[in-house]
């Protein structure tokens, strides 16, 4: 038991590497925040675009989302980081991680928003259109607000799952929390920094989970 405590909760090691891990925490937090905002906005924008039912645009959207839903995020990161320079595009590991994870979240979010849009009752469209509202006005004032409320639970789950992939950014040299913890672990020959990282991830993601619960009840309406 003492060996276990020493390995995972060594206070001296924890104290020594805490500043580094906190540094990593900020990076993780920044990356997660950026991915969530861009990913969800991208998904919403694509879903709105898709509602206009323009043939070739829809094809492009479907190809995009199927691609990013099918490929493992790790593969995307590696291809982006090591492959894009050959295409003349040199981006930092952080930018690549942001871009790739946003696209992945955007793809999944598009599917969720789209499902939400199509599940809004046809009568809502007809009621709005019958008063003279145009297609876009109906979409944005009547349909999307209802679709968003319906999509909050699945969207939050998906967002959390994908945002956790920020840990993968360690493979493309981003000094996020897991990278820092692993480096510290190697130096200290002790796994306590990992414990710190675990706590760090809780600090980042637990509020997200709680926030999603709050949003769920705040925007719920009885049927």
């Amino acid at each position, binding site marked *: 038991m003492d060996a276990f405590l020493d390995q995972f909760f060594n206070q001296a090691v924890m104290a020594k590497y805490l500043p580094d891990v906190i540094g990593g925490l900020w990076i993780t937090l920044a990356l997660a925040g950026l991915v969530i905002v861009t990913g969800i906005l991208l998904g919403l924008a694509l879903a709105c675009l898709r509602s206009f039912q323009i043939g070739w645009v829809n094809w492009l959207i479907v190809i995009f989302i199927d691609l990013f839903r099918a490929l493992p995020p790790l593969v995307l990161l590696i291809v982006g980081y090591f492959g894009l320079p050959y295409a003349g595009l040199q981006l930092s590991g952080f930018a690549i991680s942001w871009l790739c994870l946003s696209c992945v979240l955007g793809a999944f979010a598009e599917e969720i928003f789209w499902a939400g849009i199509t599940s809004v009752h046809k009568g809502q469209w*007809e*009621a*709005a*259109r019958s008063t*003279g*509202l145009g297609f876009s006005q109906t979409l944005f004032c009547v349909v999307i607000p*209802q679709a968003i409320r319906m999509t909050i639970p699945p969207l939050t789950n998906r967002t959390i799952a994908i945002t956790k992939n920020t840990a993968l950014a360690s493979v493309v040299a981003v000094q996020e929390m897991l990278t820092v913890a692993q480096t510290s672990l190697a130096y200290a020959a002790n796994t306590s920094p990992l414990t710190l990282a675990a706590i760090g991830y809780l600090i980042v993601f637990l509020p997200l989970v709680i926030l999603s619960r709050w949003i769920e009840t705040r925007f719920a*309406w*009885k*049927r």
Partner: protein
Amino acid sequence: MSDAQPVVEALGIHKVFGDLEVLKGIDLKVNPQDLVFIIGPSGSGKSTLLRCCNLLEHPTKGVVRVVGEEITAKGVDINRVRQHIGMVFQNFNLYPHMSALANVTLALRKVKNIQRSQADEMAHRALTRVGLDDKATSYPNELSGGQQQRVAIARAIAMEPDVVLFDEPTSALDPELVGSVLGVMRELRESGMTMVVVSHEMRFAEEAADRVLFMDEGVVVEEGSPEQVFRNSQHERTRSFLSRVTEH
């Protein structure tokens, strides 16, 4: 009355879904301040006919004129036309994420571009007319079916349309709530609103309708005053339909 310009004039309306011909050449003329009542068995095309009047469905063939303007013509701005044609649906179709007031003001603000304060005022007036101004801040889920339908009527009349189309406005209501909605419709009729009503409320038709149309299988079988159609129908199909709906 007969020389006044009709508010709605549909001529030779055909509507085909796939290989199903739902409307087979229907003429409908609604004069100002008239209440035209449409009855007929399920699937006879009543809803489709109403929806052709505001182009929620495009007639396969035929012409629809609203206050003289041919709305089925090419290049007509349908959103501009629709603000003059109110519609009330069987399932109310209120926007669940908006208060009763916001349900009414949405089109006032977005279609007619009326400022919020003035739109609110107009909406309060419309809600007062349907007896629900005290529910202005309630959400649809906090209202009974009858109240929801009256808010839906307020949403339609707040636009000050030339005509309101009602598609079975009381069919989704519990019997004890039907009266409140019919009361509002009666008041509208007395204030001179032009109305086309699809419904099975024969008693309402008898006291309020100027004309009754009986539709079956996509054609108007019989048409006349309530008295003529209900008491003195010329066609066997009308009589058998009436006996079916009135026997219970």
